[in-house]
């Protein structure tokens, strides 16, 4: 590193030399190409041949990636063959038919085996979810082959699809507004997008044979209850659905065991007949043994646990139904098996280094995993695969530190192997041990963009608060509340044997305040993108006499949008309960097993949320309008409307006034007071009035993913001085890029002001590379984190990457394949992001810590 920063602090000059002296000889613009260090030759080879599936602007970046036809063919055969059977049984037989007949894939060097399509360059499609999403694939370069057959399959499913079943309950105009994703994200029934947290714990602890036995006992008991004398039809008929659900659970568990054992047989066959390398032959026999035992039986060691978890992931997230995410509290989930294998060495004995290798291999499996997601979701995580995110750290039920050596192995592997997925969330608490915090820091320092940090205590309290609304009075206990993990990039949800989120209709989806403000300034009409009425008529803004008129017009647009979004989710969930049951997920959830209720139907722990994205563009715009129009009266609303319609052309002086108005993130009370109200009174206040399917309130999760780019391009000019088509703000509560000019602690002070009616808010920060990579880096970061924690801020994540390196990568992308950046809620390979998006990362202020900042953080250097 040739650049060395220095500051004067407490009367002395502090120079920030790299902690690792060897870095002094590495040019700034290629640093990240020198940081990968796969822990073994095997993981080095696996990374080199990894079939990445990054998407950008709706396209797959890597050549040769396409949709497979196998799953859609098999699910269709089963659906036709089982017409007339109870729907949940039909769903179970659909999964069984796929698992019984799908191609098995084992690749060289793999230790964790299993894939969800007929070829590792392919991914499955789900015509039973959204016919539009499949139609889009059919006309793309990634169409399943033969296209004619795929098209016929999609035609068959059109009337049966979740999309068709839900659409008829909505005004077509409302649907048109949602499908274009400018004021609202499209409903999940039109995209097929989903997310859940599988209860991995029951699979690892019990094994599926035990789950089958439980379901069989429940069926047997149900028949006995029905046969009791005298018959009571008011309660006796309830057993019918339960019996079907338990029978469906049994079918799916048996099918999953059979599928895993097919892998076992295949490993045997390859080992005995084809493999010439003796060591690999032995390893294949070991894999065969593991796949025979798990997930049928309880896991006995760490290798068992990784394999059983992977099979469960594939079924829940990719084979039965598509669901984004890799949600789990991974260190806690694996710790008992780590203990058996590494500490006790009682089964599958190994050393810490071997655990690191296993984690690296799991990360590469996820990197290779293909998601058959709709175009909307191929657009909004540019430079990455899908939202694969796991959680670590935090506290146990008694408040003690939950970090273990398993936590450290996961972090060390992530730092070593350098992949964009899976991203990691770290639950930060004051009691977390220093050794683990150092590894968290090293991942961040090396530019991975993760772990993103969440406030542990806030998450625990949130789980307890939501639990109070449980419809069956069985919400999170104190112990369970400590077992939360992020469902996707930002929102906590319970993990464990029951009560986890099973469908995205509980939480997820977005709406866009920047665009909602734009239409509020046009009486609900969208002149800049769709040329149609996008919301209710809320008045001609030229007639707004006072700021409150504008404020209330925005509120009405927002209230309309959020109610429509949640209505879509609840209708979707209702239909999922009738036609898209998830009997395997039900089988591994203790609540579903006990009650005989399907996983998408049962709700024990409410966890409703929706994501306002682009909030700061709207908020900064409101601040500027209040100041310049309604208080100083320098401009009229008529002039503002005219300037915006002209995209500020001919109004440059006026635009600069609006651009220079107070902005969020500078600890400026004028801006912050209004923006606090905007978040708490409107964004949260209107959302919290809603009750969703689960009976709980819906709360805002301010984040952004790549939607801040997409929505920016669909939003005309705004009164914060932004031109039409320019990007929106990159995080839920992050300052607009380049407008946080008072340093990193001023940002924290602003963000800390927003507290009420929020579930989560994403804070993106870009920190000085030379400071963070210096010998002082860890101390500064640790003090920053403690201050962030004490200010009761929900979240923060970091980019530690230089502008020089990003610009060099724009010029020669092939030389910068290991350059990873944090976009928003996920990390991406920089060179796989469109130029438009790359420029938004470069435009973020690289925050340096001044002497005043260091004083505020109370750090000694």
């Amino acid at each position, binding site marked *: 590193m040739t650049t060395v920063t220095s500051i004067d602090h407490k009367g002395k000059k502090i120079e920030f030399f790299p902690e690792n002296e060897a870095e002094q000889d590495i040019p700034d613009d290629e640093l990240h190409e020198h940081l990968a260090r796969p822990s073994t030759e095997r993981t080095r080879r696996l990374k080199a041949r990894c079939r990445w599936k990054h998407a950008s602007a709706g396209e797959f*970046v890597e050549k040769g990636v396409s949709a497979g036809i196998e799953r859609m063919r098999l699910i269709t055969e089963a659906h036709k063959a089982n017409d007339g059977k109870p729907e949940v049984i039909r769903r179970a037989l659909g999964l069984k038919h796929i698992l019984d007949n799908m191609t098995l894939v084992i690749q060289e060097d793999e230790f964790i085996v299993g894939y969800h399509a007929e070829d590792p360059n392919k991914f499955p499609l789900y015509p039973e979810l959204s016919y539009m999403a499949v139609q889009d694939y059919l006309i793309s370069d990634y169409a399943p082959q033969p296209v004619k057959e795929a098209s016929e399959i999609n035609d068959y499913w059109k009337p049966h699809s979740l999309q068709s079943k839900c659409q008829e309950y909505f005004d077509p105009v409302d649907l048109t507004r*949602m499908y274009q994703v400018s004021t609202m994200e499209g409903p999940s029934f039109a995209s097929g997008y989903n997310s859940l947290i599988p209860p991995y714990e029951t699979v690892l602890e019990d094994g599926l044979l035990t789950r089958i036995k439980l379901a069989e006992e429940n069926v047997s008991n149900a028949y006995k209850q029905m046969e009791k004398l005298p018959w009571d039809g008011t309660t006796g008929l309830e057993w019918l659905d339960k019996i079907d659900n338990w029978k469906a659970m049994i079918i799916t568990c048996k099918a999953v065991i059979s599928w895993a054992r097919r892998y076992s047989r295949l490993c045997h066959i390859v080992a005995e007949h084809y493999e010439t390398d003796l060591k690999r032959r032995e390893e294949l026999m070991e894999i065969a043994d593991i796949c025979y035992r798990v997930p049928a039986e309880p896991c006995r060691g760490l290798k068992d646990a990784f394999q059983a978890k992977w099979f469960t992931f594939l079924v829940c997230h990719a084979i039965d139904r598509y669901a984004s995410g890799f949600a789990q509290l991974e260190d806690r989930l694996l710790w008992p098996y780590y203990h058996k294998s590494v500490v006790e060495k009682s089964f599958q004995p190994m050393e810490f280094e071997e655990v690191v290798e296993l984690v690296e291999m799991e990360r590469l499996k996820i990197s290779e995993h293909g998601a058959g997601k*709709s*175009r909307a979701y191929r657009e909004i995580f540019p430079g990455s695969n899908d939202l694969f995110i796991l959680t670590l750290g935090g506290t146990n039920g008694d408040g003690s530190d939950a970090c273990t050596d398993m936590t450290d192995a996961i972090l060390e592997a992530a730092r070593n192997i350098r992949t964009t997925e899976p991203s990691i969330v770290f639950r930060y608490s004051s009691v977390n041990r220093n050794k683990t915090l150092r590894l968290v820091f090293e991942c961040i320092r090396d530019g991975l963009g993760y772990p993103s940090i969440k406030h542990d205590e806030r998450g625990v309290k949130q789980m307890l608060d939501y639990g109070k609304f449980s419809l069956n009075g069985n919400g999170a206990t104190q112990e369970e509340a400590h077992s939360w993990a992020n469902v996707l990039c930002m929102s906590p949800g319970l993990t464990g044997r029951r009560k986890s989120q099973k469908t995205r209709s509980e939480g997820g989806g977005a709406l866009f305040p920047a665009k909602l403000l734009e239409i509020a300034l046009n009486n609900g009409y969208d002149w800049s993108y769709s*040329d149609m009425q996008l919301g209710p008529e809320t008045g001609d803004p030229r007639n707004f006499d006072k700021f409150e008129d504008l404020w209330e017009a925005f509120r009405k647009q927002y209230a309309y949008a959020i109610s429509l979004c949640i209505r879509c989710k609840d209708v979707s969930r209702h239909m999922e309960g009738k036609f898209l049951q998830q009997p395997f997920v039900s089988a591994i959830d203790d609540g579903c097993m006990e009650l005989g209720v399907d996983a998408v139907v049962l709700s024990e722990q409410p966890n409703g949320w929706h994501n306002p994205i682009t909030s700061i563009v709207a908020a900064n715009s409101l601040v500027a309008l209040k100041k310049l129009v309604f208080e100083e009266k320098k401009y009229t609303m008529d002039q503002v409307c005219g300037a915006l319609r002209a995209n500020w052309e001919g109004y440059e002086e006026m635009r600069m006034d609006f651009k220079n108005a107070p902005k969020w993130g500078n600890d400026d009370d004028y801006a912050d007071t209004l923006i606090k109200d905007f978040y708490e009174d409107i964004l949260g206040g209107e959302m919290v009035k809603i009750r969703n399917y689960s009976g709980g309130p819906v709360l805002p999760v301010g984040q952004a993913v790549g939607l801040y780019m997409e929505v920016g391009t669909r939003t005309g000019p705004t009164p914060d001085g932004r031109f039409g*088509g320019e990007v929106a703000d990159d995080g839920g509560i992050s300052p607009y890029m380049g407008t946080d000019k008072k340093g990193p602690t001023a940002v924290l002070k602003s963000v800390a002001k927003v507290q009420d009616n929020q579930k989560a808010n994403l804070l993106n920060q870009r920190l000085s590379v030379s400071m963070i990579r210096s010998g002082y880096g860890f101390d500064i970061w640790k003090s920053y984190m403690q201050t962030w924690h004490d200010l009761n801020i929900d979240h923060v994540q970091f980019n530690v990457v230089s502008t020089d390196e990003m610009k060099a990568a724009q010029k020669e992308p092939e030389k910068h394949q290991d350059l990873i950046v944090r976009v928003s809620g996920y990390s991406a390979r920089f060179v796989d992001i469109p130029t438009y998006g790359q420029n938004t990362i470069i435009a973020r202020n690289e925050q340096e810590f001044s002497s005043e900042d260091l004083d505020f953080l109370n750090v000694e250097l």
Partner: protein
Amino acid sequence: MSVVASQLHREDSTCKPCRSCKWQIPDPTDPNSGQCTANRTEAGAVWKRWIRDVMNMTCTRHEEGKLSFREHV
């Protein structure tokens, strides 16, 4: 209302539909609709327009082809 040829307009069964234009990318949800990305500023912003019907709309900027993902958003 007269049609301004340089602007996106309806033209049933046009031989230059937006679907085949390099500036168009499909709508995020409905493949019968699309997004026009021809409107680009010098600063690099892409200001999109929604295309209601990609088979029956066109404009004079129509160019056959496909842009790299790097040039889209």
